[in-house]
């Protein structure tokens, strides 16, 4: 962590509360808007994932670069050169200090200017530096050359901009290097700001890519899309893979293959083989999107009609195999037990096709195209919408037909019941009239003509009492009560 010697006591608003010094790389929390040095808050979060000031939960990704105003305020604080104790009395803005140390401070150690020896020498002594070998060689011959740079170097003041023992005039070179240095510093600052912006943009982009999934369209040829997607999805679907990993663990490794002919080998284990071959109606479980991969290392739930269906999804937890697995010559979409039953497929069985009055748009005729990630997202949404509309229509028609059908059935049933009751009454009447011709013929005779008095049928008791001749006479008459079926018999049944 850098430590600076500030000339003036800095404003307390610009000091980090953890290190109590002006901010170094200030970051602001997204959640509670507190600012810290990046290093300080990183260390604090590593220990305790709370904001040190107000204890709101905090993670590293909640940190954003601080407002540029703060950065500028902090970068422009005047600091002393760290080589002050060696004699450098230079002061500058904090952000310009590295440049001063790197280029102009006279009390910083530099390597040998001639690049021949390994000695470190203070920059101010560079002109006087003699490599050990040179000293031995140039004792006489360079006596004159030695004298020349020395007067030149003595003229230079120690705090001037760089005065290397070359022929750079000192007076004129004073300004351009300083300007260049300042411009350089500004450019560096802008660069760092741009870098942080790029970082933010990149993370947002990544989130968007992840959200779009297979519909993410980088501007490349569509043919490359599967590879692109697999590369993109590789990173974004790690969690998805881990999720499937445990399901795959339940399957034998041999079943995880992308061979189109492998379904036949799985047929014996699939109860789906008993079902008729399904149409290509594959509704989409909303939580799993298509992942097209050329060589999948793990299986994926596959939804497309591509001729080379990769990653056939044999993933099927044991409990759901009987429920949602289908044999299909080209693909075997098998869903985990959390998925819903596909209505399009088994519709052939509960609804016998002939003899019913189902409307023409029976569910068996509906084919819902699978999600095709090669079409743009709006088109896919439109096709989904139209599929939904179709489904809704089919459902409505189904409900209506079933309703009508049930009404008819109810009516017929009712009619049948009434007829039966009437028949029963008549039989009872006949039987009782045979056994008790004197007693009951009158009432039964009168009751035949009476078409508006159904309870008279019951004067002879419940219908089932009179089915046999009664040696001991009729049972005691009950009070007139409604028919045992709770329905009045039809009033217009003619006497048999």
């Amino acid at each position, binding site marked *: 962590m850098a430590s600076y010697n500030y000339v003036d006591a800095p404003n307390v608003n610009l000091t980090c509360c953890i290190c109590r010094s002006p901010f170094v790389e200030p970051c602001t929390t997204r959640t509670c808007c507190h600012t810290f040095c990046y290093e*300080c808050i990183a*260390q604090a979060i590593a220990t305790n994932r709370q904001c040190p*000031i107000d204890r709101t939960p905090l993670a590293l990704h909640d940190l954003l670069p601080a407002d540029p105003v703060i950065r500028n305020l902090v970068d422009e604080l005047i600091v002393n050169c760290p080589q002050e104790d060696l004699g450098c009395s230079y002061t500058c803005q904090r952000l310009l200090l590295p440049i001063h140390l790197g280029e102009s401070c006279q009390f910083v150690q530099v390597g040998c200017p001639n690049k021949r020896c390994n000695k470190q020498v203070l920059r101010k002594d560079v002109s006087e530096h003699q490599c050990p070998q040179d000293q031995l060689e140039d004792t006489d011959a360079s006596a004159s050359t030695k004298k020349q740079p020395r007067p030149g170097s003595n003229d230079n003041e120690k705090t001037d901009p760089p005065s290397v023992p070359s022929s750079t005039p000192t007076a004129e070179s004073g300004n351009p290097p300083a300007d260049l240095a300042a411009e350089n510093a500004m450019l560096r600052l802008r660069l760092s700001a741009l870098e942080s912006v790029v970082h933010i943009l990149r993370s947002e982009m990544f989130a968007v890519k992840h959200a779009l999934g297979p519909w993410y369209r980088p501007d490349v040829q569509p043919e490359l899309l599967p590879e692109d997607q697999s590369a993109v999805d590789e990173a974004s679907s790690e969690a998805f893979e881990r999720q499937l990993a445990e399901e795959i663990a339940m399957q034998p490794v041999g079943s995880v293959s992308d061979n189109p002919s492998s379904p036949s080998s799985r047929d014996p284990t699939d109860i789906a083989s008993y079902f008729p071959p399904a149409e290509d109606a594959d509704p989409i479980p909303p939580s799993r999107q298509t992942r097209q991969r050329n060589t999948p290392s793990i299986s994926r739930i596959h939804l497309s009609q591509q001729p080379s269906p990769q990653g056939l999804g044999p993933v099927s937890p044991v409990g759901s195999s009987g429920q949602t697995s289908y044999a299909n010559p080209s693909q075997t979409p098998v869903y985990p037990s959390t998925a819903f039953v596909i209505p399009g497929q088994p519709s052939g069985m509960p609804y016998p096709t002939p003899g019913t009055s189902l409307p023409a748009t029976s569910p068996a005729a509906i084919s819902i195209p699978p999600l095709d990630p090669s079409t743009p997202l709006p088109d896919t949404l439109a096709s989904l919408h139209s599929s939904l509309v179709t489904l809704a229509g089919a459902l409505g028609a189904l409900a209506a037909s079933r309703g009508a059908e049930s009404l008819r059935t109810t009516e017929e049933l009712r009619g049948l019941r009434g007829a039966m009751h009437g028949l029963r009454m008549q039989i009872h009447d006949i039987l009782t009239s045979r056994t008790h011709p004197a007693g009951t013929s009158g009432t039964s005779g009168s009751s035949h003509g009476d078409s508006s008095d159904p309870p008279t049928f019951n004067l002879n008791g419940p219908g089932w009492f009179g089915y046999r001749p009664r040696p001991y006479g009729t049972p005691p008459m009950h009070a007139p009560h409604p028919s045992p079926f709770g329905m009045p018999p039809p009033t217009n049944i003619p006497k048999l």
Partner: protein
Amino acid sequence: MSVSTRRLQKELTDIKRDGTPVGIELLSAEDFATWYLSVEVLGNTVYEGEKFALKFRFDNQYPISAPAVQFVVDDHYTAPVHPHVYSNGHICASILGSEWSPVLSVVSVCVTIQSMLASCKKKERPPDNDRYVSHAPENPKKTRWDFHDDK
């Protein structure tokens, strides 16, 4: 190591420049490992007239890690009789444990302890004082405190 040193240097500079709050005094700060401060509770409290000494021990992770703070128990000073202070000087305070924050400082810890003493209604030792003191670690940070609010 330099992080804690720099921070303690700053705190020391601030104390020397701005002084300490009323009732708190800096007794000794010779190095950046152990500091001593005295705490006195002012006003009409049960500790009126009593003066206590706090010993702060810092490790190289300060201020990320909390300092070890305890009352000094020797010939000159004793530990106050308080439901959260054990007779060996160890303090049961959440801000010295799970609730420590790097924003807190030596002075703020002293102020907290001062107010903890000031708000005490009854001078009594903690219920498990004898048991704790008999096998307590030397460093109170090694104790597994169970912070409870007995308001």
